[in-house]
């Protein structure tokens, strides 16, 4: 495949399930290699939980097969429709980052196909540095053929969750820190339309695996679906605060404890097929940043104030803390701090101007943006956020590229 694309004078990029929000998973005008056929489990040890599988296998499929045996991926992103290769290439994180770190922290070895080195195995500390470059390496350091990961034991497939309201970013941070030791998963929803005294209000949810010994596989049926694009006017400065107020009421009305299967806690949007169509034909940008812990909650409050003042944003807003566990990846996004993710309906210039304003706040705080979610960050923001960029660039496979990578070089 690599030779075919090279013979045609094209760069190549391995693609999985296409859940990246921006252009890091695209290679427009060039070649894309569909990895979906490489979806086999190569080895699994039920005693140690070490799993080696081909890169096209989805995390959902891993869970479906391993959860009944009492094993689960050490961490999962907000959707189970991601491939193993994609999880490595974006060094994805989950609601348990404060404990488990990123997905890369559970990777033991990688199989890579390089245009210059052929098929190779990469392990932490290798002289080539390819293991560290590949984790979070956006698929540019070689075609990821397989990964060997360490699964973790679970004593049941349900989670016991508890939701608590908070009225500002400082309260959020206090809640998050107090919950870090005692809870596996923590995450918060924030009302990004709230201003003034309500700025930063939201609902914090913390969960633990329920050790009841009941191991059930997730339900793959998608109950809702958005088969067509609704008109783009659904979210505007008038309706958005009303919708967010509605969500705030809904969430605060069901505070307290509840027990749910893991899929509804970890992958709430997976039950709605085509949810991304909600934003209409023009689509949306997601903005996900992290700001360092040293800056406290102040930059997040500043970001939320800017978003609320613009009248843009969405009801899909996630706030979470990242812990201190360091990823082996050179280009890993998380750092100890706070991460905020907000969807923005694409309103053209108006939206881009707001995101530039948000960039300034993030940059001033010493934070960075997540390439897997990005479709517009300027190169300067990428360079400032990723100090290992030069080392990484030296390790990419010359036959590979992506739309994101070219955008970062043509700015």
């Amino acid at each position: 495949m690599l030779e075919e694309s090279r013979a045609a004078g094209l760069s190549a990029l391995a693609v999985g399930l296409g859940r990246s929000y921006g252009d890091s998973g695209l290679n427009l005008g060039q070649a894309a290699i569909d990895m979906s056929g490489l979806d086999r489990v190569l080895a699994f040890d039920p005693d140690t939980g070490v799993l080696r599988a081909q890169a096209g296998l989805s995390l959902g499929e891993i869970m479906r097969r391993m959860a009944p045996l009492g094993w689960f991926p050490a961490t999962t992103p907000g959707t189970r429709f991601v491939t193993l290769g994609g999880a490595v290439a974006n060094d994805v994180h989950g609601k348990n980052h404060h404990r488990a770190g990123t997905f890369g922290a559970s990777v033991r070895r990688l199989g890579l196909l390089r245009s210059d080195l052929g098929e190779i195995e990469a392990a932490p500390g290798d002289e080539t540095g390819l293991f560290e470059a590949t984790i979070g390496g956006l698929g540019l350091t070689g075609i990821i053929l397989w990964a060997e990961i360490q699964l973790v034991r679970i004593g049941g497939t349900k989670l016991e969750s508890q939701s608590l309201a908070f009225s500002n970013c400082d309260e959020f941070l206090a809640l998050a820190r107090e919950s870090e030791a005692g809870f596996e998963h923590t995450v918060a929803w924030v009302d990004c339309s709230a201003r003034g005294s309500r700025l930063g209000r939201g609902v914090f949810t913390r969960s633990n695996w329920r050790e009841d010994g009941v191991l059930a596989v997730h339900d793959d049926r998608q109950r809702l679906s958005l088969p067509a694009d609704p008109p783009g006017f659904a979210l505007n400065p008038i309706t958005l605060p009303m919708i967010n107020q509605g969500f705030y009421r809904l969430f605060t009305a069901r505070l307290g404890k509840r027990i749910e299967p893991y899929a509804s806690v970890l992958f709430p949007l997976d039950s709605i097929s085509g949810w991304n169509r909600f934003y209409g034909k023009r689509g949306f940008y997601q903005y996900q940043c992290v700001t360092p812990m040293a800056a406290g909650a102040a930059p997040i409050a500043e970001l939320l104030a800017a978003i609320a003042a613009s009248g843009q944003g969405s009801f899909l807003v996630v706030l979470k803390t990242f812990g201190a566990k360091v990823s082996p990846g050179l280009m890993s996004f998380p750092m100890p701090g706070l991460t905020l993710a907000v969807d923005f309906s694409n309103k053209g210039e108006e939206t881009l101007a707001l995101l530039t304003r948000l960039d300034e706040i993030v940059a001033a705080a010493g934070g960075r943006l997540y390439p897997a979610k990005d479709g517009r960050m300027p190169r300067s923001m990428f360079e400032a956020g990723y100090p290992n960029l030069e080392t990484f660039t030296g390790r990419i496979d010359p036959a590979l590229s992506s739309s994101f990578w070219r955008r970062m070089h043509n700015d």
Partner: protein
Amino acid sequence: MTETSPVRRVCILGAASAIGEETARLLAAKGDALALVARDAGRLETIARDLASRGASKVAMRTADLARLEDPGAFLDGVSGELGGLDAVLIFHGVLGDQAEARADPSAALRLLEVNFISAAVLSLAAVTRLEASGYPTPALVAVGSVAGDRGRASNFVYGAAKGGLAILYQGLAHDLARGGSKVRAVIVKAGFVDTPMTAAFDKGGPLWAKPATIAAVVVKAMETGGPIVYAPWFWRGVMLAIRLLPQTAMNRVNL
């Protein structure tokens, strides 16, 4: 329930084919015991490990070139011995070949006919007698055929003749089994265009192209019910009826 349903023992010939592997996955998820047969030992090993992780109660492997078996009956007895009996035999092996080459070179044509018709036919006949001994409620012999066998067309009639011949064999076999009151069923699943490595050279687009998993689901269903001729996907029955009814003069004017 007075007894748990017995584990079904399935022999999969051509297990490294795309449709064969997808079918094996569906059967593994049901907990069946599988015996996989293919030429490439390395691929077979990879596929077998994956199937074990999908819930197959047993995965046995045999490397063989099915077109060159000395004694198909003895071969199946060997597989049967490993699984402790046979409740279903599925035939997936086949090659598309090159029509121009087969037309020009008799030895290429012979190879195509050997793989797609002779070996499949002989293995089917050998399998059916062994399936008679099965204690499973619905023992089944299922082969993958092709819509190419429904009407001879310039583009692939040697392959088509082999698959068409196989369909006649299955039709007759099913008739014979039904008349004899046997509970063994013989079904041929006639696949349309399928996106597999076999068809890698084709430009695949449009609604007529199916995924191997779609055909596999039809095969698994055919192991329980329906037949003796099943189209996969179903709409090919109508398409091929129309193509069979086309007068030859009209056929001669189209490039099919």
